[in-house]
C-alpha cells in the first residue's frame, strides 16, 4: 500500500515538473491538419476532424450518437468530431498528460475541480477573447457578460461557462417517516439535528443516527463550516474567512470557534452517534441511508438528495426522506460559480475557430444539444408531458440522461428533467430568493512556493486532526495543542502567510468587499 502510494506521489511530482517544462517549451503545434489561414481566419472549405475530450466513461450508445452528430456537423461546419473519454481512473494524471504532451485536442472539459484556474494561469488554454466574436458570435451573446467576466483569469477568458444555474450547497437529509413516528424535531441547525439523532439512537438502537465514512473532514468539518462558521468556501490549511467579511483572514485552527466545533464532535461521539471505527468505514454516505443502515446525512446537495429519493421510492416505498437546505438557516445561498462547468480550447488545438463554432452549435442548436444530452428520441428517451422519460432501465438503456457527462453545455432553454426533479427545482427556487455570488471559486491558489510544507501538513492533518474531528480523542484541548504544535513544525505559518497574501491580492483584483 505505502509503496504504491509513495510511487504515486513521486510520479505526480514528476508529472507536475514535466507539465511545467512542457508548457514552458510551448508544446508546439500538433500533428492534426489545420484549416487555419495565415491571417487567423477559418477556412471552412477544408474538412477537419475535431478532437473532443471529456471526463469519465463513454455511454454505450456513444458511436451511434457520434454518427448522428457528425452528419449534422459535416453539413453545417464541414467538420467531424471524435468524442474521447478519459474514464475516471487516474483521470487527473491523464488530464495533465493530454494538456502537456501537445496532442492535437480541440475541446476539453474544465472545472474548478479539474484545476481550470491553475492550467489557465500556466497557459495551457487558448485565450478566447478575440476568437469569440469571430467564430461564435451567438455563443458570445448567449452567455451573459457577467459570466464571461467571472471566468476570466488574468483578464482573459479561457473557458466557455455553462449557463445552467444550480446549487451544490448542503442540507440535512433525514428519514421523515422515522421523525414522524417518534415525534422528533426537524433538523434545521446543530441543536435540532442533535435532538433528532438522539431520538433515533433511543428508538432505533440498531440504526446509525448519522451516516459517516472515513472521509471525516468532508462528512463533518466541511458541512459544519458551511452551516455554522459560514465560511466563504472549503478553505484549506486552517485559514478562516467568513462570507460576510471576505477581506478578513483569520486563523481558524486554535480559535474558540474550532474548539466549539471539536467539542460538538466529541459530544456526538460520546453519545454514540459516531462509531469508533469510523475512520475505516468505506461505504458511501448515500448507500448507508438507502439501505436503511443510517437515518440521516449531515449535509448533502439537492441533486444527490433527489437521487436517493428515487432509489428509495422503488425499493422501500414506505420510507420517506426529507431535506432542509443549510442556506435557509445561514441566510444566503451561493449558486455554483461559472467556472464549475466549462469547455476550453487547449493551446495545441489545430482548429480553434472551427472548434468554437462547433461548441456554439452544441450549446445553442437544439438538435445538437438534445442529441448529446439525452440521446436519440424514441430510442433512448421520450418526452411525456414535458418531462424526460428514459426508455427501458438504466442497465438496458445505452444512453441515460446526460450520459455523455455533458454538464458543461447544458442549455436551460432545452433542458429536460425527470418528473422527480420538480422537488429539486423547488429547492432551487427557494434558494434563488436568498442567492449571493460565490466568492471563493474564482480564487486560484498557487502553492509552488510552499509545496513541501503543504505535503508535510497534509500528513499531520491525517494523523492528528482527523481523530479529533471524529471525536476519538478524550481530551480535546490537549489534542488540539498537539496538533497545532505538529502543524507549526510542518510549516503552517509559512503556508498561511503566503495563502493570505494571495487571497488579499485576489480580493483586491476582483473588487470584493
Amino acid at each position, binding site marked *: 500500500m505505502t509503496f504504491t502510494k509513495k510511487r504515486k506521489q513521486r510520479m505526480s511530482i*514528476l*508529472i507536475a515538473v*514535466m*507539465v511545467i517544462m*512542457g508548457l514552458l517549451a510551448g508544446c508546439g503545434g*500538433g*500533428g492534426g491538419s489545420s484549416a487555419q489561414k495565415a491571417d487567423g481566419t477559418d477556412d471552412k472549405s477544408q474538412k477537419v476532424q475535431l478532437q473532443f475530450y471529456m471526463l*469519465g*466513461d*463513454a*455511454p*454505450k450508445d456513444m458511436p451511434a450518437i457520434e454518427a448522428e452528430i457528425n452528419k449534422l456537423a459535416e453539413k453545417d461546419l464541414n467538420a467531424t468530431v471524435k468524442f*474521447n*473519454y*478519459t*474514464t*475516471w*481512473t*487516474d*483521470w487527473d494524471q*491523464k488530464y495533465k*498528460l493530454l494538456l*502537456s*504532451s*501537445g*496532442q492535437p485536442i480541440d475541446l476539453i472539459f474544465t*472545472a474548478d*475541480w479539474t484545476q481550470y484556474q491553475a492550467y489557465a494561469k500556466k497557459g495551457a488554454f487558448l485565450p478566447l477573447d478575440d476568437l469569440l466574436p469571430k467564430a461564435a458570435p451567438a455563443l458570445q451573446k448567449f452567455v451573459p457578460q457577467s459570466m464571461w467576466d467571472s471566468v476570466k483569469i488574468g483578464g482573459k477568458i479561457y473557458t466557455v461557462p455553462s449557463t445552467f444555474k*444550480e*446549487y*451544490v450547497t448542503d442540507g440535512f437529509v433525514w428519514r421523515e417517516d422515522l421523525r414522524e413516528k417518534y415525534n422528533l424535531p426537524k433538523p434545521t441547525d446543530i441543536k435540532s439535528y442533535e435532538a433528532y439523532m438522539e431520538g433515533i439512537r433511543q428508538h432505533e438502537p440498531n440504526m446509525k443516527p448519522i451516516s459517516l465514512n472515513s*472521509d471525516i473532514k*468532508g462528512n463533518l468539518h*466541511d458541512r459544519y463550516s458551511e452551516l455554522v462558521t459560514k465560511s466563504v468556501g*472549503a478553505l484549506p490549511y486552517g485559514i478562516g474567512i467568513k462570507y460576510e467579511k471576505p477581506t478578513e483572514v483569520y486563523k481558524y485552527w486554535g480559535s474558540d470557534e474550532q474548539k466549539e466545533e471539536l467539542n460538538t464532535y466529541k459530544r456526538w461521539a460520546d453519545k454514540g452517534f459516531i462509531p469508533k471505527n469510523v475512520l475505516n468505514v468505506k*461505504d*458511501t*454516505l448515500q*448507500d*448507508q441511508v*438507502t*439501505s*436503511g*443502515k443510517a437515518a440521516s446525512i449531515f449535509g*448533502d*446537495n439537492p*441533486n*444527490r438528495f433527489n*437521487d436517493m429519493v428515487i432509489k428509495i421510492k422503488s425499493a422501500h416505498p414506505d420510507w420517506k426522506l426529507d431535506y432542509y437546505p443549510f442556506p435557509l438557516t445561514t441566510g444566503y445561498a451561493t449558486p*455554483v460559480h461559472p467556472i*464549475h462547468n466549462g469547455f476550453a480550447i487547449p493551446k495545441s488545438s489545430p482548429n480553434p475557430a472551427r472548434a468554437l463554432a462547433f461548441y456554439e452549435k452544441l450549446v445553442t442548436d437544439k438538435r445538437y444539444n438534445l442529441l448529446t444530452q439525452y440521446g436519440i428520441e424514441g430510442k433512448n428517451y421520450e418526452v411525456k408531458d414535458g418531462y424526460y422519460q428514459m426508455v427501458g432501465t*438504466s*442497465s*438496458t438503456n445505452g444512453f*441515460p*440522461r*446526460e*450520459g455523455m*457527462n455533458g*454538464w458543461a453545455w447544458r442549455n436551460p432553454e432545452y433542458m429536460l428533467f425527470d418528473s422527480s426533479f420538480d422537488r429539486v427545482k423547488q429547492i432551487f427556487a427557494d434558494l434563488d430568493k436568498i442567492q449571493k455570488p460565490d466568492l471563493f471559486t474564482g480564487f486560484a491558489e498557487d502553492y509552488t512556493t510552499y509545496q513541501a510544507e503543504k505535503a508535510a501538513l497534509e500528513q499531520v492533518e491525517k494523523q492528528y486532526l482527523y481523530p479529533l474531528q471524529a471525536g476519538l480523542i478524550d481530551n480535546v484541548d490537549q489534542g488540539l495543542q498537539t496538533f497545532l504544535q505538529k502543524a507549526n513544525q510542518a510549516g503552517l505559518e509559512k503556508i498561511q502567510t503566503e495563502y493570505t497574501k494571495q487571497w488579499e491580492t485576489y480580493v483586491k483584483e476582483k473588487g470584493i468587499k
Partner: protein
Amino acid sequence: MAIKEDVYTRIFQILSYAIIIIASIACLLPFLLIISASLTSNESIIRDGYHFIPQEFSLEGYRTVFTFPEEVLRAYGVTIFTTVVGTTLGLFLMTMAGYVLARKDFKYRNAFSFYIYFTTLFGGGLVPWYIMLTKYLGLLDTYTVLIFPGLMTPFLIILMKNFIRSSMPEELFESAKIDGAGDFKIYYRIVLPLSTPGIATVGLFLALAYWNDWFSSSLFINDPHKYQLQYYLYNVINSMQFIAQMGAGTGVSLSNDMPTESTKMAMAIVVTGPILLLYPFIQRYFVKGLTIGAVKG
C-alpha cells in the same frame, strides 16, 4: 519396519503442517469472502457487512455483470490477443537480441549491451514516453500500443544473453559455421532448441506482464472496446470510488447505474475465475521454468 522417527522430526512436521495450513487458509478465506459477497444482495452487504455465509442470497451481482457480457468477453479477447501476440513476438525479438549479443565475434556487442543496459538505469520519464508514443509514433488508441512497448525488456534481454552465453560454448557456433550454417540457421537450428528453459522463463515473465498490464490501456486507449481485462475491471471499481468521493463536493450527478458492492465482487470472480481454473494445468511448467531460470539465468 520403518525407522522410528525422532521426536524433533515429528515436532518439525507438525509445525510445518500447521504453518502451511494456516497460510493456505489465510489465502483461501479472502477468496471465499469474495465468492460469498458476490452472492449476497448489495443492501445486506452495506447493512450487515461481509459474511462467509450470505445473509441475503442474491444473484443480482452476476446479473448486472452479464447484462452486457460482450464487454467482459471483449476485454478478455483483447488481453488474450495481446498476451499471445506480445509473448510470441517478444520472445522472437529477445532471443535474437540475446543470441547476437552473446556472440563474441560481434564487434559492437559491448556498445549495444551498454546501450540496452543504460536504459535500465535512466529512463526518459512518463511524459516523454507518452509524447513519443502518441505524437511521433501515432499509436494512440491502437492495439499496437498495448503490445509494442513491452516487446523488448532490457532486463529480459540481458537475462537471455547471459543464459545463451553460459549454456552454449562459442565453439559450438564455430563448428556449425564450418559445417556451412549461416548465422540465421545457427540461431534457429542450434540456439533456439538449446535454450528452451531460458525461453520458458522469459516467456513466463513476458506473458505475466502482458496479462497483468492495465497501465497501457489507462494511458493510451480511449475506445472502451480496446480495454484490457485488468483495466476494464479496475475502471469499473474506480468509477464507483470516484463518484463516492468527488460527487459530493462537485455536485456532479452521474446518471449511469454504478456497480454495487456485490457487482464488484461478481466481476472479480468472473475475471479471475478462468485463470484460476487454468492454473493447476500449467503450474508444473511454471515451476520448471522458474527453477531452471533461477539456476542458470
